[in-house]
């Protein structure tokens, strides 16, 4: 198929999970010194395929050759011996240890005989060579998501990985940081390393890859050699979905109503005690979507958590329709009509061990209809859950199954359904579509648009600039705890907002 020097050859890989075939006789080749994109919707089997190569998932059938010899990893340790490292979407770092400790730990685990001092030295050299500056003595929990990613990459390089598998590495990055990652990937390629770049974003795959393998529903839908053929996003979309992509959201009305939220001179501290939000003031009106863009870690989370009652502001006021909601609890705010779609779906948005039905009243179990005469009315809760499951197309066998059996996209549908069913005046959504496949993302964007059309006020915090520009009526940018703007829809061009995100100026 290709005349490049083949480094990894996976043949006829099959992996079944209950109810789904994650990989259905997948063939995959990785050439030495290439950047190979693995493209597909969520649930297409990309991560499973690479986890098999990485030794963390055992295939049901198929063979793998690495460098021409047979390779049957029993664990990631075997993978590391062949120079294969995977950087996961959810980082595998020990939060309470320092950066260097994490690297020492990995080196010991891999049976590499480097001393601590040698590893420190190697880390410094890797940092120098690739511009991956990380403080070896910083504790991991103090780092932002993009810094943690740098730590993972640096660790892979210190351990001299020849094959790097990057699982959706751009989801934690701001648009301006993505180019930096691509430069890094290209630099690694120049040094003869091979990279598998897992993504569901077409543009990124086209920007950086030499070849692309597209997976659809567990099968290879196509392999494109970009050095030989021209590929367009439309063409890739068709291969990915096998049909036309889902329609974009439409705002029918853009009519601004009464003011429902006033935030005045708000100061909020972050987890490390620093001022995460500084003197933020803004208004929010009925029927509008206020987009808040910004690189992760610039105070968006703290601002939003103060508004929804998860974090107590130190100074300032939050007024909802005249009600002083400053420092009110999340439960009071739910009753005041403030819904919240948190970023951390599995950790915060649901209780994985409880049933789907129980999760649909996680916020609202105290309300009439569910709770009467001192007793939670489970039959009423179950009917409510069945409505949400049906209306928001949550795929689950029964509402009495635990939520942990649901996929990420279905969990998000459940959360969105629950929050919308609260009948909110104000809906706060934080990265509501990150990591979701195009279909689920489009569904959620359409729901948000429809909510605004019906008069709800929406705050949309997103690291996906396209999403912000697509949906918002006004766009603000969070930069080092300060809210810039908001700009009107007309003023907010991609370039202008991107510049504000990167520099904090340009209003």
């Amino acid at each position, binding site marked *: 198929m290709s005349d490049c020097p083949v480094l990894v050859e996976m043949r006829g890989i099959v992996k079944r999970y*209950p109810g789904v075939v994650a990989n259905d006789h997948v063939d995959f080749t990785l050439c030495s010194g290439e950047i190979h994109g693995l493209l597909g919707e969520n649930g297409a089997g990309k991560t499973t395929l690479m986890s098999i190569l990485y030794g963390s998932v055992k295939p049901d059938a198929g063979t793998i050759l690495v460098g021409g010899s047979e390779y049957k990893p029993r664990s990631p340790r075997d993978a590391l011996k062949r120079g294969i490292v995977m950087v996961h979407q959810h980082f595998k770092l020990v939060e309470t240890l320092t950066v260097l400790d994490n690297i020492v730990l990995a080196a010991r685990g891999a049976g590499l005989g480097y001393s601590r001092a040698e590893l420190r030295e190697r880390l410094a050299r890797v940092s120098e060579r690739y511009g991956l500056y990380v403080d070896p003595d910083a504790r991991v929990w103090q780092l932002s998501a993009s810094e943690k990613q740098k730590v993972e990459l640096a660790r892979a390089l210190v351990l001299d990985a020849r094959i790097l598998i990057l699982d959706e590495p751009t989801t934690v990055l701001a648009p301006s940081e993505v180019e930096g990652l691509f430069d890094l990937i290209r630099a690694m390629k120049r040094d003869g390393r091979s990279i598998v770049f897992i993504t569901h974003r077409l543009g990124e795959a086209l920007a950086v890859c030499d070849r692309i393998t597209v997976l659809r529903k567990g099968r290879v839908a196509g392999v494109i050699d970009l050095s030989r053929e021209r590929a367009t996003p439309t063409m890739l979309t068709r291969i990915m979905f096998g049909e036309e992509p889902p329609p974009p959201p439409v705002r029918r009305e853009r009519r601004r109503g009464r003011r429902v939220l006033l935030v005045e001179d708000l100061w909020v501290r972050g987890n490390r005690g620093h001022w995460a939000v500084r003197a933020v003031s803004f208004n929010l009106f009925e029927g509008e979507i206020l987009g808040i863009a910004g690189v992760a870690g610039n105070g968006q989370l703290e601002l939003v958590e103060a508004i929804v009652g*998860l974090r107590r502001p130190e100074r300032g006021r939050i007024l909802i329709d005249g009600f002083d909601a400053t420092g009110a609890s999340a*439960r009071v705010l739910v009753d005041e009509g403030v819904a919240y779609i948190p970023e951390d779906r599995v950790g*915060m948005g*649901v*209780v994985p061990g409880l049933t789907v039905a129980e999760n649909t009243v*996680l916020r609202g179990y105290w309300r009439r209809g569910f709770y009467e005469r001192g007793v*939670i009315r489970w039959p009423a809760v179950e009917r409510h859950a069945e409505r949400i499951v049906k209306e928001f197309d949550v795929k689950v066998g029964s509402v*009495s199954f635990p939520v942990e059996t649901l996929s990420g996209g279905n969990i998000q549908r459940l959360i969105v359904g629950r929050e919308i069913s609260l009948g909110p005046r104000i809906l706060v959504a934080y990265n509501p579509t990150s990591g979701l496949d195009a279909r689920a993302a489009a569904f959620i964007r359409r729901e948000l648009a429809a909510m605004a059309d019906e008069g709800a006020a929406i705050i949309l915090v997103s690291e996906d600039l396209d999403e912000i520009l697509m949906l918002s009526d006004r766009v603000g940018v969070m930069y080092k705890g300060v809210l810039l703007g908001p700009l009107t829809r007309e003023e907010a061009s991609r370039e202008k907002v991107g510049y504000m995100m990167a520099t904090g100026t340009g209003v």
Partner: protein
Amino acid sequence: MRLKPSDRLATTLALTASLSVALLVFAAILGTHGYSVTGFARVVSSGFWPPENLSWRLSSIFINSLPVLFPALGLIVAFRMGFWNIGAEGQLLVGMAAATWVGVFLADRLPGASVLPAMVVAAFVAGALWAAGPALLRVWLGVNEVLTTLMLNYVAVHLVNYLVEYRWKDPRGFGFIRTPPLHESARIGAAEGAVLVVLAAGLVYFMLRYTQLGFELRIIGSSPKAARYAGISYAKVTLLAMLISGGLAGLGGMSVVAGLTGELMEAQRMSPGYGYTGIIAAWLGRLHPAAVVAASLFLGLIYERQSVLQATMRLGVGYTMLFNGLLLFAAISSTYLEKRLREAGRLG
């Protein structure tokens, strides 16, 4: 809470397998120490056989299970929210002291029918207050509850010993360290015990399944972050859960003095560690009220047979504790086995 049939099968298989291993290990230890394993089995099964006087023996087993059963029910409440109450023993001892005080010194001044309710209230309140301390320290200052609850057990031992030796000692007791006997109206039998068990187990079940508090503590137990998102007050739930947990342990103490001994003696002679055995029963029953009752009855059988084992085989109380320890080991390790079985079930 509700399991799919295949998962329930996995639970049963895992528990059966690990309990069998525990029994085999115990049998092996008995054998190597020169005891007859069949003799042990005969004595334990003689709780049910031959059928003469069976109802008397069954009620004796039942009463012997109460000091484990009540703390175990209470521990369900604390453990379900992930609050590691290791202090059921201390809560049981102070409940026992409070019940003694009512049963010995207050009973003749109270109308007969109100003595038992007064003892129940006193024992519950005492156990609840003993548990409230660690709960408040945790909520206010973030003090680890494992340490505080455990340490308070030792304090409770000395408190009981102090009371019985210096305050409540029977002047006509020939110098024995014990209180005067409980008033006749302050004693309980199997019937009163059964009423209390049904009430307590029913309330725990109802509380967990149907009340806001129960739902909230299950949410906290699964995901503290989601609990914050739901606007649940960790402080309020912790305090209420510990009041219930400690109160039920206190009832266990009352069942010792009112059901078994009829008088208060030094702590070491009152409890062989019922509160700790309650932890075993709670895990054996997988924190489900009905199953915990069943596990407690089984442990009650062992306790009830203890005196017979001692008399006929010279098997010391240490072996009972060893047996209980093996059971806990089995109960905890079975969760791992269960997980593997479930995964296998899902794949197959």
